Structure formats: C-alpha cells, structure tokens
C-alpha cells in the first residue's frame, strides 16, 4: 500500500462532517493532528484511499468506525479542576438560581457522571468548600457514577499521580491531599466520605430509573463517545433525573441543542449550560 496523504480538500471535507457529527471543531493548525489519525484509521481499516474510508465513515450502518475515530480524535484524560469555569458557574450562577427556588433546609443534589477515577466529583467538592460559603447553610449530596466498577474502586481510593493534580494549588494540595511515599497524592478521608460512588449504565433504563431529584448534573466529555440514539436516550435520562429548573453541564465541545430540544440553553457569564424548563 502506498503511503497515504490527506489533501486540503479532504481535510476540509472531513472537518465539516466531523463537526456536524460530534460538535468538535478542528482549526487549520490541527491539520497534522487530524491527518495523522485519519491515516492511522485508513490503514487500520485497509481502505485504499481517503475517499473509500470517508464512505465507510459516513455510511457504515453501525457507526462503529466513526466511534473509533472519535475516540482517537479526543483526548481521554481527566485531571483535577478540568474545565473549571463550569465550577465557577456552579457557585456563582447555577446554585444561586437553584437555591432561590428551594426552601432552606432542603437538600441540594449534584450528579457527576462519569466519575472516571474521581477527579471531577472531588474537584466539585473542593470547589464548593473553597468558593461557596453558603455550603454552611445547605445539605449537599454529591453522587458520582460510572459504568466501570474498577474505575469506581479507584475513585473511592482517591489516589492520584502528580500529573492528575497539576492544576491543584500547593495550598489546596496541602489542605485536601496526603502525599504518599510513592509520590502520589491521596484525597483526604473527609472528602472521600463526601461523595457516593455508584455504578450506572446510562443506556439501561432500570439502572437510571432511581436517579431523580437532582439540581445539577455534570456530564462532560462522555456523550461524544455515544452514537446518536444513545445520546438522545442519555438526554432523556438527564431530563427525568433533574428537578424542574435544574441544570446540565456538558463538555466544551458538546451541545445539548444538537441532541434534543428538551432543555433550554442558559447563557451564564461563566459558561453555557442547559436547563430543564421550570414547572408550568
């Protein structure tokens, strides 16, 4: 097989298609990144040209190849305080809106899915303690779920590499983590006790049925890995899991408007999130 190359027209054609399917936009300066992965998949699928590969990508009924490529094009890495503008939005905009409609003394419920190894739910917990003094007046339930039981176990243990905590300030590291002999950091027991980790398959109705009465859901960088129908089903789950007026936060490249019209787009100063309509 001759060495594949991606022409500018092919890059542009792929870029438009991929944006429409996933919401992920590649600028011209990502050309090398995109070409490299496209060529990798063209060779892996033994397609003899970009055109043949694109046909598979575009029309394959199972959508399997698009999924493979999406996995390659996205960086599957998580760390503490990733996309933290949404946590700022949580304390400065979403929680004030939610609390305004709640009776004092009732609980706030936050769902973080997928939990992965726990970086996101623990980040939320730390952010609330550090930046939301009203936590003294409210009971907050923080539930985090994942389909993978091994990763849930890891999340419960709460041990992280220096890379994972690279965006945590020394002050917060000292306050909430314990350095281990190995050089890793373990989250403190109080925070480990603050999050309930559960196993959930978002595509399984019987799994998701008990998840209700949430005020805020974080589901970031997960739906890009789903096919269209699974995305719609996930949106249905979130709609039923939220209280009226509750919010969903997606990853920066994801858009609920491309999945369903069930939610209203809410533009806060810190972030764009999606709101379940208030009760009629």
């Amino acid at each position, binding site marked *: 097989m001759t060495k594949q190359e991606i*022409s500018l*027209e092919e890059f542009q*054609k792929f870029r438009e298609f991929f944006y429409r399917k996933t919401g992920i936009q590649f600028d011209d300066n990502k050309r090398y990144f995109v070409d490299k992965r496209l060529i990798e998949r063209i060779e892996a699928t033994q397609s003899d040209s970009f055109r043949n590969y694109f046909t598979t990508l575009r029309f394959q009924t199972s959508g399997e190849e698009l999924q493979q490529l999406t996995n390659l094009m996205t960086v599957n890495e998580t760390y503490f305080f990733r996309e933290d503008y949404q946590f700022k939005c949580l304390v400065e905009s979403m929680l004030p809106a939610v609390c305004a409609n709640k009776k004092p003394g009732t609980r706030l419920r936050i769902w973080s899915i997928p939990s992965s190894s726990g970086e996101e739910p623990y980040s939320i917990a730390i952010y609330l303690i550090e930046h939301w003094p009203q936590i*003294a007046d409210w009971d*907050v339930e923080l539930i985090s779920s994942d389909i993978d039981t091994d990763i849930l176990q890891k999340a419960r243990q709460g041990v992280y590499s220096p890379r994972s905590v690279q965006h945590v300030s020394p002050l917060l590291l000292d306050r909430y983590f314990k350095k281990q002999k190995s050089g890793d950091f373990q989250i403190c027991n109080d925070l480990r006790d603050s999050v*309930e980790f559960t196993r959930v398959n978002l595509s399984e109705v019987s799994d998701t049925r008990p998840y209700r*009465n949430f005020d805020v859901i974080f589901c970031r960088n997960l739906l890009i890995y789903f096919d*269209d129908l699974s995305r719609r089903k996930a949106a*249905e789950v979130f709609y039923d899991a939220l209280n009226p007026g509750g919010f969903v936060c997606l990853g920066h490249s994801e858009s609920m408007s491309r999945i369903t*019209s069930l939610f209203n787009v809410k533009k806060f100063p810190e972030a764009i999130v999606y709101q379940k309509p208030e009760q009629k």
Partner: protein
Amino acid sequence: MGFVKISATDISTDDQRHNDRSYLGLLDSLQSTDEMTRRWAARDLAAFPQASAALMEQLTQEPDRSVREAIFVSLTQIGDQIAVDGLITCLRSEVVNLRNDAIEAMKLMPDAVAPMMQGLLHDSDPDIRIFAVNILESLRHPKVESWLIDVITTDPHLNVCATALDLLAEVGSQQAIEPLQQLKQKFADEPFVQFAIDIALTRIQGA
C-alpha cells in the same frame, strides 16, 4: 450543614413511579392526565416491541413536547414497520415540530427506513421528497449517494434537486460528476444551481 451522604441503594428520595410497569399498566399510564406519568410510560414502553401502535396513537394527540420526545425515542428504539409508517405519516403533518422530530427520528433508523426511501423520494408531494433528502443528510446507509444521484437525475422540482445537491457536495464521489454536469443543463437558467453545482464538482474532484 455541608456534605451529606446517602446509601447507594437509596439514590432516589422520592420514587413517583407507583404505577404498574407491566405492558397493560404502562398503556394505562400513557393515558394519564399527568404529563410526567405519560412520559415515564412512554420511555418504559420502549421495552415492549408491541407498543409502537399505542405510542403512535398517543403521539398524534400528545400536547406535551417532553412526552412527544420520549415517544419519538421509544419509537426509534422499537423501529418496527408500524413505527416507520407512523413517522412517515408525521412527515405529512402540518405541525412543524412533529414533522421535524419525525425527520430526526428517521435519521436514526437506517435499516428500517431504507426500504421506504425509494417511495419517499418519489412521493407526489415535493415537500415530502425534500424531507426525505433531509433524512438522508444523517442516515448511515451505503445507498445514500445513489439515492441522491437518482434525485438529481429524475426529479423535476428545483427545490428538491437543490436540497439533494447540497448534500451531494458533501458526500458525492466520482460517480456523481456526470449526473451533476447533466443537472447543469436541466436548470441552465438558475444561477444559484449553477453556482452550487460548480462548488460540488470542485469539492468532489479535489477530494
């Protein structure tokens, strides 16, 4: 105050699904006056392949948008002939939301929709033919390009051909070149079509 933890076995604090979740119980719930009860019934009925007729019937009279969305997702999951026929009926509806949601649902059902596509693309109503091309926009099926070529070759309607042309610019291959050149002759007096064909040809030949 602060963080509180509840047992994983008690995630839901207020289970409102007291109604019977059997097939007959769900059909009953689908008629409830409470929209949330209808919505949950619609979602749970996805597990019952025989539910498509009841879901379709409810869809045409359902006033609540969120319930309609749940019905569409369940119909897409069931994906049988009754569901497809029902969705095609929605394409003829004067209710814009219903029509658009039907198009979105049908995009997700390539295997079920494919056998109907030829008929839709040759429907006597040009609007239906345009909606059929709209479905092709995201339909994952190997025949999409040949259907589009058939449209620009045989359809006499300018707007139908223009809609197909837009999509061919994205998905067209070498086999679309000659039909596109013929389309230039068919709509020789339409500058917009000439312009769009030139773009499509440039993209196809450059790729």
